């Protein structure tokens, strides 16, 4: 072991508050290495236990509406066009044409260059960071791989914010994280956060994607969650949806435990977004149960909880129709976008 010259890190507020004024990579590493370990068997057992909750009748109705209200309806395809984005927005605004009581989704999530079309299609329904309406979220920082220079990642972010994105879903540099360069990952998040700043001084919300499927171990996920929060994440998010496995219940539980611990420590509430692979209402309800029993049901609002999903919405709508009418319809009774 050598006494390295301490590498100074960007002085993100939370990290300074927790680790002290002379923020160095070493201080960050000591903190992350000092976190208690995660027992994989125990974590998965707990997640399986939460999955056995039986959510019926009025609780189910509330859960289905909450899934819709907290959904980031997503289209992240190479083949996306202005037309497909307009169609996505139309679905976000009117999820179920047969029932005007159906809540709207929280946001549409698109690539950065599609932001202007989403903003235009939303028109007056664009929430623009406000409480009502639909937000526009953009993936940025060379999504999904994150393999680009910092300058390009920042330009990517600034452009999306300038085009009207209310939320930025960034990816961390998993290569740097796995190589142990926690400082690089940290500084990039801080820089992207700063790139989220609008001309009026407000910030677009920053969701930090850990890509847990590439971090592989639960210990890594725990460290990366802490790192992202310390660097200034408003939300931590499991996955891009482009890597398998994407969101799993144990990973989400673990990240929620970090959010709970941060809240215990500082009183500050960080948001959580599992993304990718959640397709059935039944699975989504299990996530809600996990949130409610880990951090508390006050997290079940669009400000603190999101599902990143594309095909989930229609399954929820089918279940919702079933609750309302008493019988199952079928895929032709919900709209494709």
């Amino acid at each position, binding site marked *: 072991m050598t006494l390295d010259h301490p590498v100074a890190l960007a002085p993100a507020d939370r990290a300074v508050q927790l680790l002290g004024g002379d923020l160095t990579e070493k201080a960050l590493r000591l903190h992350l290495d000092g976190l208690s370990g995660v027992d994989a068997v125990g*974590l998965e*057992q707990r997640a399986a236990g939460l999955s056995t909750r039986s959510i019926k009748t009025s609780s189910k109705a509330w859960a289905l509406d909450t899934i819709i209200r907290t959904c980031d309806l997503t289209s992240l395809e190479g083949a996306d066009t202005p037309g497909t984005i307009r169609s996505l927005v139309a679905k976000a605004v009117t999820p179920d044409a047969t029932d005007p009581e159906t809540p709207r989704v929280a946001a549409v999530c698109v690539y950065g260059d599609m932001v202007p079309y989403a903003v235009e299609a939303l028109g007056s329904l664009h929430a623009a960071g406000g409480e009502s309406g639909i937000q526009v979220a953009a993936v940025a920082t060379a999504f999904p791989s994150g393999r680009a220079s910092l300058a390009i990642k920042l330009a990517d972010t600034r452009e999306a914010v300038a085009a009207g994105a209310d939320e930025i879903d960034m990816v961390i540099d998993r290569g740097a994280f796995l190589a142990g360069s926690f400082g690089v990952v940290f500084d990039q998040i801080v820089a992207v956060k700063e790139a989220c700043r609008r001309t009026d001084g407000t910030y677009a919300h920053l969701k930090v994607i850990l890509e847990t499927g590439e971090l592989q171990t639960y210990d890594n996920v725990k460290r990366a969650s802490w790192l992202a929060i310390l660097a200034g994440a408003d939300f931590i998010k499991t996955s891009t949806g482009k890597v398998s496995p994407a969101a799993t219940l144990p990973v989400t539980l673990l990240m929620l435990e970090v959010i709970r611990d941060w809240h215990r420590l500082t009183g500050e509430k960080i948001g959580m977004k599992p993304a990718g692979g959640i397709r059935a209402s039944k699975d989504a309800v299990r996530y809600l149960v996990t949130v409610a029993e880990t951090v508390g049901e006050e997290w079940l609002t669009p400000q603190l909880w999101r599902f990143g999903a594309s095909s989930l919405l229609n399954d929820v709508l089918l279940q919702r129709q079933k609750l309302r009418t008493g019988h199952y319809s079928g895929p032709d009774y919900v709209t494709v976008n």
Partner: protein
Amino acid sequence: MGFLEYAPAPESAAILNLKAEYGLFIDGEFVDGHGEVFDTISPATEKVIARIAQADGKDVDRAVAAARRSYEKVWSRMSGSDRGKYLFRIARLVQERSRELAVAEALDNGKPIRETRDVDVPLVAAWFFYYAGWADKLEHAGLGPNPRALGVAAQVIPWNFPLLMLAWKIAPALAAGNTVVIKPAETTSLTAMLFAEILQQAELPAGVVNIVTGPGSTGQALVTHDDVNKVAFTGSTGVGRMIARSVAGTSKKLTLELGGKAANIVFDDAPMDQAIEGIVNGIFFNQGHVCCAGSRLLVQENVHDEVIDRLKQRLSTLRMGDPLDKNTDIGAINSAAQLERIRTLSDVGEEEGAERWTADCVIPDKGFWFAPTIFTQVSPAHRIAREEIFGPVLSVITFRTPAEAIAKANNTPYGLSAGIWTEKGSRMLALADQLRAGVIWANTFNRFDPSSPFGGYKESGYGREGGRHGLAAYLASNGWEASGSSSASRPVTKASKTTKKAVAK
């Protein structure tokens, strides 16, 4: 109403097809008992579920005679693979009727359906499947070539896992070629009666398994019966002692699985969130009615406050109430008498100066309930640190070094189980080596598997159940003369002679 107050999700008791009254199950049939019929009630509502026959001495004689007859005429002559077929059949029928069994167990015992459905009943099936596989492989059990059955086994089981304890007893006994007379606990006979129906469905030869219901006196008549060759008991250390006395001086083989006061040891480098789950599962699983429950939490002093704080927060999310609701975590205490014992010992804990904290649960009007409770500031001298409470009560003791943890963990007359929570593998193994307990869990607790032997040290009993070791309790190695037609128990001298013979061989 908040989301967390999940809407009721009750499993329906209407799926049960219960009789108003159950007789004794002797020689393949339900027969009346000579004792006074008694009620079995739901501890959650105090409502009567069914009436149960009581076996007196004469009934026990009939049951033992039936077991002896079927041992000699049928079961001991049957090939191992044929015995295995019956056991496989029983296992499959348990699976087929699992929902019904889970509901009946929750109803009669008071434990939540979540546990009977996900733990008790699946393990019951697993136990029969596991020992079914052994039935034709007994020469590989480690007892030498051609080991032999003992004869008639008298088995007495407790009320905390009624059906699971029945499976732990019956499955290895039958696989080894013994016949059985079993007595369920007085407050929890119901699932044994359903199991008797399963035996009829499986067409198990009459008399191979006989079930006699009743109070302690029925059990006493059974274990002291002259014509049984093997006694197996799970229950309190007090009763275990009486049984050991009554069996002394006879040739009956005895295994006892008794009380416990397990230490669950949490080091400062433990995987903390999983350790909290493990502590909860260790003592609040099955309302703490678990002989191997982690009732003493030994926590390293430098993380004590954090652990207790997190534990209290976690306990506040446990849901107590209707055992048949699928979202219930904590069910009812099994009986008024047990509730009284838990209350008394908890009051003693407070009087002796420990600090009491109880989760904020709504206690239903009817039934027997006790909210999850933690005592901190407990010293090893306190009664709540020494006596088995057998309820949802955790005593927290601190330690500073591994040596102190070992000394405190071993400082108990019991020795059934222990838990270790640390991320350091070498410490785990070193500790496991020095803890005097039959079962040691590392970074988990209360996990059971039919292939794993289970049993205690010291006042927690002797003999092992489960695994290959569990077969040894029901087999004699070649050279030990198995029970013949003579009905009298053999005197000690003969047993020791046969031991010599085995050694000489």
